[in-house]
């Protein structure tokens, strides 16, 4: 499998210097504070008929290097939680502390800067930009973070090479298979060497082979020390995680603060 290429290459790619002063995860020792701390998170959406209480007070802690699977049925609030953690939406109540920074107090610009330094996002439907090649999609993330074009290109190539997509670097997303698109999306998420990788149903739009590729990739990233929080409704996919947190009706079942709670 192409994805089985050594992750040393990935490490080389992500070891490339970043323009922003991103903390180096490898420098974080076992006693480091948790990567993500969520307290009393609530979110209600206004709907035409009645308000939808998507989150009803969520507490969750994710430690450095953890691979957590967030499971729950449709409508349980998994994706909403993930979006709030990434700062893609604002909570009504509660706090999110990411890399030691409380995000609810940040302006839009500062939240964006925090996101680019610490968060990589992978979506079910990839959300690649159709008008750009695979290489440009990956490099765009680095450019957003302030990398020079040559540096961004090199980093994107390295990541695509690592993920077995170097030959496809010039292809537009529409010409790639689902698995290939998701690998490009993962490469893009890793472009700025995030401390936290958030994945929202990353295998949801893939066939079994593609899903296995992505899961294998996540496992390897985790082994290399990447902190991952993955939303899924599939028990098989969640089985690859270090810890499973279950969610229903906007609440975590049994709490989410126990770093070693439910084992898969």
């Amino acid at each position, binding site marked *: 499998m192409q994805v089985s290429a050594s992750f040393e290459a990935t490490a080389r790619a992500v070891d490339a210097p970043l323009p922003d002063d991103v903390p180096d995860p490898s420098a974080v020792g076992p006693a480091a504070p948790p990567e993500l701390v969520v307290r009393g998170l609530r979110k209600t959406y206004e709907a035409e008929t009645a308000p939808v209480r998507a989150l009803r007070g969520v507490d969750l802690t994710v430690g450095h290097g953890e691979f957590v699977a967030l499971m729950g049925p449709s409508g349980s609030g998994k*994706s909403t939680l993930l*979006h709030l953690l990434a700062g*893609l939406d604002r909570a009504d109540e509660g706090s999110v502390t990411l890399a030691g920074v409380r995000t609810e107090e940040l302006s839009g610009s500062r939240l964006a800067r925090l996101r680019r330094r610490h968060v990589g996002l992978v979506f079910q439907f990839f959300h690649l930009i159709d*008008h*750009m090649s695979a290489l440009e999609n990956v490099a765009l993330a680095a450019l957003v973070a302030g990398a020079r*074009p040559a540096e961004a290109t090199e980093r994107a190539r390295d990541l695509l090479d690592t993920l077995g997509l170097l030959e496809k670097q010039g292809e*537009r997303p529409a*010409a790639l298979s689902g698995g290939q698109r998701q690998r490009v999306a993962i490469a*893009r998420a890793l472009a700025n060497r995030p401390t936290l990788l958030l994945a929202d149903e990353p295998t949801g739009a893939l066939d079994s082979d593609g899903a296995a590729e992505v899961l294998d990739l996540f496992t390897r990233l985790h082994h290399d020390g990447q902190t991952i929080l993955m939303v899924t409704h599939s028990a098989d996919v969640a089985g690859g995680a270090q810890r499973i947190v279950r969610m229903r009706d906007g609440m975590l079942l049994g709490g989410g603060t126990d770093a070693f709670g439910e084992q898969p």
Partner: protein
Amino acid sequence: MGDAFGAIRAVARAEVRVGWRATLLMGVVFGLVAGIVLGGVGLAGRTASAYPRLVEAVHLDDARTLVAADQPQLAAAVPSLPGVAQARTDEAWIAQLDGPALRFVSIGAPTTAHENLLDPVVVEGRAPARDAADEILLSESIAQSSGLGVGSIVTLRMLTLDQVSKFDVGFGPPAGPSTTVRVVGIGRMPAWGGALAPVQAGPAFAAKFLPDIIGYSIYVRLAADPDAAQRFGAAFARTAAVVDQISPSLISQYTQRTVELPSATVDPSVRAAEQVLVGGLVVFVVVLALGGLQVLGQSMVRHHGVRGGTQRVESALGMRASERAAARVLAAAGAAAVAGIVAGGVALAAGWLEPLGSQARFEPEPGFRPVWSLVLLGGIGTALVFSLVVAATAAIAGRRRATVVPSVRAAAINPLRRWPAALLGTRLAMHGRLGRGGVPAVATVIAASLAMAGVVAAISFGASLQRLVDTPARYGHAADLTIVDAREADIARLVADPRVAALDVGAAGTAELADGDQIEVTSRDVRKGRMPIAVAGGRMPTGPGEVAIGPRLASRLGLDVGDTLEVRRIQGGTVTLQIVGKAVITSQNHGGIGDGAVVAPDVMRQVAPGQPLYDATVLAVPGAADALFAELSRNLEVFQRDVPTAVANLADLVTLPELLALVLAVVAGSGLAHALLTSGRRHAREVAVLSVLGATPGQVRATLAVMAATTVLPALVVGVPLGLGAARVLWWQLATATGVAGDLAVPGRLLFVIVPAVLVAALLLSLAPAARAARTPPAVALATG
């Protein structure tokens, strides 16, 4: 079927909920454009029909003639001549009209009642009362040129028949009766002049001054048979000849034995003006209609393209393409109705517009005159066209699928695209359609470029037209005054006069080219200053062997500066003249522009046989022309500068290109504004992805600004030179046809302003989608994008 209607209604309701504002806005804009088009059509119709409607309204006579007062038997014979169905005889006088300008006018008044034969349309005031001998009606042209209006009191000093017979040799002060009359009305009529007096009085006037008439104006309605005019003309000539033998008239030299045919003979300048004006309007209407359709079409494709995915869902649920299109037509029914109402309203308001330019003087029903059929049918037609465009664009948007695009060369990111805003903004602008159901970027760029070219072309063409109309030298009328057959003593006096800035003595004659073609040649003997003669290229001739030819002559002969012209000498043989320039000069014979050639006086004597006509052309210092004319005209035959018919016709059109530019700018601007304002919605997902990657609100704004700039920059880069090129070609053709200089007046300052103004406007417009993007959380945009 019932299920299909239910589905159509449901989809239509959903479409109305999410897109009614945009659809309504497009309906209003399209309605305005369609209204202007309908108004233009109505105006073209009113302009083209003004003259024939006036002919009908005034019951214009078929034939007319003037008979001297000392030949009453001839006047009495006319009603019974062959071909005459009806005749009206007015008494005629010539009087000196006291007023701001001294002038002689002819007066006509009927002694008997007449029915449906030559009744002027009274545009102001009323007709003279039958029993009032002190009331007159003036033609519009006399009222304008004399500065008289309704209520003016004027004194008429009539000439006797004997004085009229000495018109060309001088006759002293008027010896006929004097009377003071009041202007009670201003009349409109085609074919004033000749036998039709521009001052009309009533029967009481005719009765009072019957002994002092100088002639009879006889107006004839001819019989219906096709050769009635010929029969009447021949009979009148025969009768006149007999009467002339029995009792010759004192003023026979002024009463030609010919018959005027005003209904059948239309002044060529009227026809030319009508063609130019209507042609200009048609171009205006066609360009605007095409522009409006193009903008509506693209806007609608964008509008439907944003929700192309919805149609795919509807298709998956079993709705046919026709049903999906019908749902969208139903959703846009309100906007279509608004478009129709706005279009009809504008067309109704256009009923206030008088015929364009010189044709306004022929409008028999001044004021509000809407074309109801155009208002009603045009309004309905606009709503239908709007609905058709909605249906067609919905079908197009529903058919589109994401396109698999070819690979691109995997190169390093262009250093110029260091900024992600530049990389993503240009990509979104240039590849906006992919997978999104929008308008192809190239189509947007082409449309914007064509619109910009249209605006620039219209502005440049209008500027050239305005410059021509404002600069008499450009149509060969540089001089303020022309003194016919000027004598050296007068010329010397004028040269010494400080009010004279420039004075040339010109000679005109006819020369024959080697191939037998005859051309008018002139020579200019410069006596003072420099007459600003327009040179379309090269220079004026300065010595023997040189010639400057008019632009139209150059075009006709296929010659240009640097070529030679072979002209026959009077003494035999030919002389070869080097063409050193193209000079815009007016013919002294027929007033045509750019048909002749200018040579040095020595050459003139070699090539033009016979005694040439000499005239002195005078350019006065600013503000002195009128006083100089008043002074010189006491003793000399002097003409003030006039505007040639061809230029006057163009002057009537001078606002049309500017109006076209304005309307095109509004229409194209609306389309571009729609494209830019909807760009945020069309690219909401991409913008949200940018935010996901950590782009700050400033970077999002910059991306949308780059996208806006990338959309309009090609339009500026391509459209401005394209427009200038089109204007140059169009102006050159018009200039060559008219005989004036073909160099384009490039409104540099305006263009200098347009380019940054369009860019700034695009950047400002991009702020709206940027603000919307900032308000919408990326999570929401990703979920709905």
